[in-house]
């Protein structure tokens, strides 16, 4: 039900990412007066992975609460619950990929063989989202009052990553510190494949993967131990 019903459902799936992108495009084009070429494509490379991560997290935060009724009624593998958030949001994620060719055409950016790295970047994004969904589900059920705060925290990560402005446009200390944000590697790997026309640097793929691996290593066993007790929390 994430996408509603009826014939307009597909339209909503396609318009969501355009709406998200449009806000930042306006910011870049009319407010910040950015001189970066292909600013819209650059932002697209950040918006697409971020939308999946943000939407997965928001969905996962509520995933256990929303399924409270079924959790209280029958036994089934509760490990599926957070992952269902990723699957649900992957539909919009897939729809958002249409932005890439659209922006490439709009800015006259020709595809290069580096585009073959895009599926790799997509895969890393999905792994990142899966790793994030388990702690999100736990936080959502343990601390339901903190759900808006958790979303704001992740949204803040977008702004302390090269989301609106590409990393090569940033200088000084910020340039040195930004790679510590796992989103930085994700955004730059998309830019490398789509905009710059070269393969992503190893750290751009490995850093978010390492973060996802660490997050999963810490939270998956915790969720596995907690899952039998979810009914006590929602009941």
């Amino acid at each position, binding site marked *: 039900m994430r996408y509603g019903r009826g014939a307009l459902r597909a339209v909503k799936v396609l318009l969501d990412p355009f709406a998200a992108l449009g806000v930042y495009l306006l910011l870049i084009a009319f407010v910040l007066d950015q001189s970066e070429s292909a600013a819209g494509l650059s932002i697209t490379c950040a918006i697409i992975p971020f939308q999946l991560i943000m939407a997965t997290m928001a969905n996962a935060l509520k995933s256990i609460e929303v399924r409270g009724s079924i959790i209280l*009624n*029958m036994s089934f593998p509760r490990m599926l619950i957070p992952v269902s958030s990723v699957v649900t949001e992957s539909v919009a994620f897939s729809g958002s990929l249409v932005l890439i060719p659209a922006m490439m055409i709009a800015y006259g950016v020709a595809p290069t063989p580096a585009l073959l790295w895009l599926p790799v970047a997509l895969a890393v994004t999905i792994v990142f989202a899966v790793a994030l969904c388990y702690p999100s589900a736990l936080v959502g059920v*343990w601390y339901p009052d903190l759900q808006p705060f958790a979303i704001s925290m992740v949204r803040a990560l977008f702004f302390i990553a090269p989301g609106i402005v590409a990393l090569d446009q940033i200088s000084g200390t910020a340039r040195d510190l930004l790679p510590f944000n796992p989103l930085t590697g994700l955004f730059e790997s998309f830019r490398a494949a789509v905009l710059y026309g070269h393969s992503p640097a190893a750290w751009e793929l490995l850093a978010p993967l390492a973060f996802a691996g660490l997050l999963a290593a810490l939270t998956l066993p915790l969720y596995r131990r907690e899952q039998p007790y979810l009914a006590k929390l929602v009941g």
Partner: protein
Amino acid sequence: MQGAGVRFDFDHLSRVLTPALRRIRRFRASSWGLRHVSLHIEPGAGLALVGPTGSGKTTLLRLIAGVIPPDEGRVAVRGRVGSLLATDAGLGPLLTGRENAELLGVLAGLSLRETRAALDQVAERSRLGEAFDRPVLTYSVGMRARLGFAVIQAISPRLLLLDEVFEALDHEFRAIVEEFALELRERGGIVVAAGHDHAAMSRMCPQALLLDRGHARAHGPFAEVIGTYRGPEAAGAMAEPATAG
């Protein structure tokens, strides 16, 4: 079930604590929802759970269904479980009856193909008509219970768990539930039902377990247990329960 118990831990703000949360929040108090309950239910048996509100009936059903684990003791259940532990029966309000039936069938252990093959049967048995393809949030309580029960019928459970469902059903559907329960017991299945409609429960379940504040107080023939619970007059008013073959 041997010496089974379910404990609820609370923090200083009366929020429920899980084992992980006990390491983070300050533990304040415990309450046993169920304690020292030992039970062995033979195939073909029907067991009614009776007792006042808060006595542990729902907790015991959830324990049997595998919804919550025991905090002490041991619980072993063999066979597919069909549970209707609330009138909304795990239904998603934004999904249609058909979509809910498909989801619940798969989660209950049927393959997607088996579930889809059974959808027409679910639609027919639930008697929802066109409502079957409308979102469940448009349903009445009775319609939700009927849908939940129709899904249970489709999954062919070996163990049927019912929790205060009767109150939501019309007389015609109550008869369908009773008939299904009796047929299930005749096939060697087990029925465990909780509620306050003792007349209906006595027809499905020849045995009863009286719970009081999480403890089993009496276990035996339905009329005897009701007599312990509500007095000799109530026991006399109960019809003799039907027994499986």
